[in-house]
């Protein structure tokens, strides 16, 4: 067995155990950590295939940014409780059916690979700057192709990222909810009408009104 084979087997084991861990963990935090394991395994497989730039980007962007974003949202929402996903099953037989669909997908993928591997003639190969055998380093090669042949696609991704940032700001702003709160209770904060907007908000309102009651009582007693 060559070193490449051993590295591939190690990487495949890391990827598959991590993937199963993501699906099988009841706690979302554990799922996120198993996702890090999978992404690191994929980065290892990229290194085996000499895609060094992508391996670095995989670690920095996926493990460093996306998973941190997941963990941040999990902590922010406080949903890091174990999910009872085996007890409540609103659609009868959904999980066995999902396993059947997964097995079918797996069979389809493997069979397609086996059939199509005969069709890999290697006749359509990258030429010039696109060839992996050219004299450039990995990053140079990607940069040259990305900013020449794929320049328009690259610009479009800039627009896509801008749209995503604006969408995140618009979706998560709470101005509209605050306006509605004021409309519903113009005079007193005692009515727990804020309940439809989530227990977080109503808790806040209740605690504020409680404090006010306490202050009023204290003032009356003093008076």
């Amino acid at each position, binding site marked *: 067995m060559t070193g490449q084979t051993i590295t591939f087997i190690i990487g495949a084991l890391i990827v598959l155990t991590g993937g199963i861990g993501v699906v099988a963990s009841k706690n979302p935090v554990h799922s996120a950590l198993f996702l890090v394991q999978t992404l690191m395994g994929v980065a290892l497989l990229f290194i085996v295939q000499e895609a060094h730039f992508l391996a670095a980007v995989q670690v920095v962007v996926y493990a460093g940014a996306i998973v941190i974003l997941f963990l941040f949202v999990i902590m922010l*929402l406080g949903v890091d409780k174990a999910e009872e996903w085996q007890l409540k099953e609103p659609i009868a037989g959904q999980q066995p059916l999902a396993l059947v669909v997964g097995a079918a997908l797996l069979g389809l993928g493997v069979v397609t690979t086996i059939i199509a591997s005969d069709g890999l003639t290697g006749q359509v190969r990258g030429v010039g700057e696109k060839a992996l055998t050219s004299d450039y380093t990995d990053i140079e090669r990607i940069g040259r192709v990305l900013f020449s042949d794929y320049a328009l696609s690259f610009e479009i991704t800039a627009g896509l990222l801008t749209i995503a940032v604006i969408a995140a700001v618009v979706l998560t702003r709470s101005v509209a909810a605050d306006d509605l709160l004021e409309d519903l209770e113009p005079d007193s904060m005692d009515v727990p009408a804020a309940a439809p907007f*989530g227990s977080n908000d109503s808790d806040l309102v209740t605690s504020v009104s409680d404090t006010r009651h306490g202050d009023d009582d204290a003032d009356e007693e003093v008076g």
Partner: protein
Amino acid sequence: MEVSTEWYLVLSAVLFSIGAVGLLIRRNPLVMFMCVELMLNAVNITFVAMGAELNDVGGQIAVFFVLVVAAVEVVVGLALVVAINRRRLGATADDVSVLRG
């Protein structure tokens, strides 16, 4: 025993199936997004393997764009999860049935 492209394709198929099954059986929207990430990574393995097979850097370029799309998808998806949880705590994917008119 040499590693051929088919090994990577089979591994990718297995990882994609794991992600698809997870997407179907889990109800926590955050974990469902993680399963989507698993499926995207399976496709990335395929892209890089085929790029290496065909001696073409185009496969790596495709992975680069998939990374960008994955980041955008996560940003918008998590913003939606936060917005929904602010109005209805502990929302799961089954609560979509509440939208019924």
